[in-house]
């Protein structure tokens, strides 16, 4: 008994088993259905792009932490999540080095230059996507989108481009069922609304995310795109807007990024509303078919401010029995 060493630390003395790696692994698990769909629809190209993005993301994180003499935390799975999300934002026709550059940018610049996990003020995968889009526009858009059913090399328009009727874009709108399943052109991880919703439900079930951001984001887009329809007020094609483009991917997996979204309940609602409004505005009136990425990035920047002004009313703040 004399050699007994008792730890005298501060309470609480018990903790939940859930740690960062379990949360991040849950996100990876939630992304699996969409990953399988991407391979089903886009073939080996989707697999290669995802593998390159993930390996480079993890490698970059390890290298940076080694160079900066920080503990190497690649087993927290967060770099894997960034890699998968980045790949999901690439068209199947994108070359492998786009994935490589994007991953390096996401991890080195967006994540670690700002202090690493929890410190990035933008979603790394989305910021990298915006960077790639600006740097190699043709390799990131129309020319690189492939029609899953067609030959590998045939470039085609995405449903949102078709819906928008952009100049020089011709083709038939795919059916709602195809949209829902993911058998349409788009970035490799965004096309299957069904797979993304299954994964999103898993994240909600595991309490990795709360309902507020995805529900309000998607709900806002639904309402606005219905009100401001092509044929006048209240004629919008809601299901098309919900299932086409990156809305499901963005709402469940990217707008909910912890570091770059508000933590207060009211703040999350305002943030999600903002994402929904900007997405709808870009889709309906912008010169660009898809608004998800930019709306999330813009709201990411506003997140700290939103948090500051939406501090919850604490217990007892207003005299309840007065």
């Amino acid at each position, binding site marked *: 008994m004399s050699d007994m060493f*008792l730890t005298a630390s501060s309470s609480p003395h018990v903790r939940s088993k859930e740690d960062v790696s379990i949360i991040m692994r849950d996100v990876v698990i939630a992304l699996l259905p969409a990953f399988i769909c991407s391979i089903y629809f886009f073939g080996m190209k989707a697999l290669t792009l995802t593998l390159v993005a993930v390996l480079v993301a993890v490698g970059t994180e390890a290298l940076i932490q080694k160079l900066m003499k920080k503990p190497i935390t690649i087993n927290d799975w967060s770099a894997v999540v960034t890699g998968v999300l980045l790949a999901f934002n690439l068209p199947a026709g994108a070359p492998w080095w786009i994935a490589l550059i994007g991953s390096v940018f996401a991890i080195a610049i967006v994540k670690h230059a700002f202090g690493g996990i929890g410190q990035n003020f933008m979603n790394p995968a989305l910021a990298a996507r915006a960077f790639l889009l600006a740097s190699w526009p043709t390799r990131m858009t129309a020319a690189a989108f492939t029609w899953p059913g067609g030959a590998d090399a045939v470039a085609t328009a995405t449903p949102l481009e078709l819906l928008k009727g952009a100049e020089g874009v011709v083709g038939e709108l795919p059916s709602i069922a195809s949209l829902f399943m993911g058998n349409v052109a788009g970035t490799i991880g965004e096309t299957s609304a069904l797979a993304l919703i299954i994964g999103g439900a898993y994240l909600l079930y595991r309490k990795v995310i709360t309902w507020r951001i995805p529900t309000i984001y998607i709900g806002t887009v639904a309402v606005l795109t219905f009100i401001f329809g092509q044929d006048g007020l209240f004629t919008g094609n809601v299901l098309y807007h919900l299932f086409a483009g990156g809305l499901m991917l963005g709402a469940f997996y990217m707008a909910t990024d912890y570091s770059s979204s508000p933590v207060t309940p009211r703040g999350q609602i305002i943030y999600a509303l903002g994402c929904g409004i900007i997405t709808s505005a870009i889709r309906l009136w912008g010169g660009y078919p898809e608004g998800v990425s930019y709306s999330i990035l813009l709201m990411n920047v506003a997140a700290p401010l939103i948090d500051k002004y939406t501090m919850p009313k604490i217990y007892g703040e207003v005299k309840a029995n007065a």
Partner: protein
Amino acid sequence: MKQATFHGGIHPSYFKEFTSHKKLIQSNPPSQVILPMQQHIGAPCEPIVKKGDVVKLGQKIGEPKGFVSAPIHASVSGKVVAVEPRLHPDGRKVLSVVIESDGLDTLHEDIKPQGNLESLSPEKIRDIVGEAGVVGLGGATFPTKVKLSPPPEKKIDAVILNGAECEPYLTADHRIMVERAEDVVYGLKALLKALDVQKGYIGIEDNKLDAIEAVKKAVGNDANIEIYSLHTKYPQGAEKQLIYAVTGREVPSGGLPMDAGAVVQNVGTAVAIADAIKIGMPLVERVVTVTGSVIKEPQNLLVRLGTPFKEIIDQCGGFAKNPGKLIMGGPMMGMAQFSIEVPVLKGTSGILALDEEEANVPDPTPCIRCGKCVNVCPINLLPLYISAYSLNDAFDKAEEYHALDCIECGSCSFICPSRRPLVPSIRVAKREILAKKRKAK
């Protein structure tokens, strides 16, 4: 019976099965007791015996100093062998009276029944409770008499007995409710009379069905006492959360329960009050749940105050393996001990021994802003921000984020996936803010 709860909270593993069905057992009489003169929140007592004095069981040995204080009585009969500073469970050395037991338990002559509850005036009940040294036995040890003496402008209309016992592992209150339900109700009636209040409530978490049944039976058809089955969730037994669950009222920020018209007492306290009136016995023993993965035979023991932890643990078969951490109280709010020689106090609801693996303090990693601490905080605070400001010495900002309203329940630290020291850092902020306020005065 009503079902009630509060906002936020967590669901830790409860580990109550070690002891929840074990009957209360009288522990072996200690050969020596160490009675620190500080066993309650408030001013310490002054010893009124000296080395060499012979004392009887129940004799007052510590006189309260100040309004917020409670006397301390001898828990054995025998001889005072020392009046000197001894190690106290809060980590300091505190002036203590050490009594060598003569093994006879000779009762002090003042100990006799105080008469019928009906015949006692509110003032008399308050005096009995005060003289018996009764304090809040849930662990906070606030002197009960003070709670029974609200300023006249505070209108109290609800007395709530706290039988939630939401801390994992602890089953002391559970067994008290099952085995001494009559006295729980008797104590509540005494409280109602002392405060001149009509309505009494008893809140019990719904994982203690046998306790709910027993108390219900003891209440009978008394329409003035209502039993609330509380949702099993930590910290359901926190005073503010309990008041909200039962009355729907919020204690104003910076205020006390009486500002919401409520007085909350632990069920064990009610039994201590019943003993003080029925037998005249001051508070000299209490129920202690001795439990945890390294205790050989976990028990609910009736322990004399002042008994060293070591003796209690030995009576439970000792340690099955090397303990890593010894806690007075529950795992969420209890205090870690570095010695097993410290004595059982009025506030010792449990002695919890965890193994070396459970005792391991994990290294914190950066905050990922997951917001889980925000979702579980029963006060609706933003623990991640308060903690970050505190760790950066920005105590003014921490105060802006309502650091002082933190009840230190530990839910945020429990849930944090980055293992951040949220509660400890918020405690630092509270201390700094209060120190600054005192300075400003």
